């Protein structure tokens, strides 16, 4: 089942945002785009609400929780653990970016919702 992060309200920069969303969450890569969208949806909800029940592979959760909520705490060991779990550097990169973009879409969603006309 494909999971997508929520639709974001439009703004004057929506075309650029859409280009980025399509590339990172849907473009060709080493990881399945369905997994990238799942990561983005998970990060989006976790970032906005501080918790989420959305599914995510267990082996990714510790790293992506950290990237979402406190990326400054990521260590060399966190990345090494993913490598030891069988993820290539390109896969780690793509999933990190999917997570970051999910948080960015969450920021747009939360921010644009309150700046509209009264």
């Amino acid at each position, binding site marked *: 089942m494909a999971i997508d992060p929520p639709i974001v309200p439009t703004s004057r*920069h929506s075309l650029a945002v859409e280009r*980025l969303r399509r590339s990172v969450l849907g473009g060709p890569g080493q990881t399945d785009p369905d997994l990238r969208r799942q990561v983005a949806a998970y990060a989006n909800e976790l970032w906005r609400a*501080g918790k989420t029940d959305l599914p995510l592979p267990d082996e990714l959760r510790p790293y992506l929780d950290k*990237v979402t909520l406190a*990326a400054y705490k990521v260590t060399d060991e966190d990345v090494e653990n993913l490598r030891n779990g069988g993820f290539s550097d390109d896969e780690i*990169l793509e999933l*990190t970016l999917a997570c970051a973009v999910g948080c960015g879409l969450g920021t747009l969603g939360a921010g644009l919702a309150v*700046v509209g006309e009264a």
Partner: protein
Amino acid sequence: MRLSILHDGHAEAERQGLEEWERLAGPPSDVSLALAYRPDFFGDPLNAWIDGALRGESEWSSGDRELMGSFTAHEHRCPFCTGAHAAVASLTFGDERVGAVLADPDAAPEGLRAALGFISKLVSDPAGLGRQDAEPMRAAGVDRAGLEDVVNIAAIFVVMTRFANAMGFEGTDEEFAREAEGLSVTGYAEWRGEPSDPETNR
């Protein structure tokens, strides 16, 4: 950087681009290296978004917007993005003013101060954000487009600080200052084949 592919895994075309960059402006920073890796996937679309939000037409000056970016990065404890964009903002405002605003956003003039307060709430308590949090910006005369710019800048730095911190970007003030000078010439979108218009610096 934690992933060596971002340092030296570039395809031939990007490697040549980086060598050309180095001849013109010195060694590329970690962010330049990272955005040049598989640029179709992330770097090019990201730079297009940044170019529109930080350099496109806006009621905010580029210096204001760079300072908003640096402030957002500061809120995320991302020394790389804070320093890199403080260096760009300093070209407009000077190091002292930029440092003062990062240390205390109340030191900023009214409109910018309102924007920084909004960003701080947005990135620390998105679930608690309400229309009232945008009121100080509206009271300072910021229009709808200006409000959208602020939200987009915050979102850009929510993305970039996670990328930079997770990947372990490092840089020095000297490198930030050098790259800020280069950026003031090229803009964000140029070096990957999307030339800036010298008339508008876009």
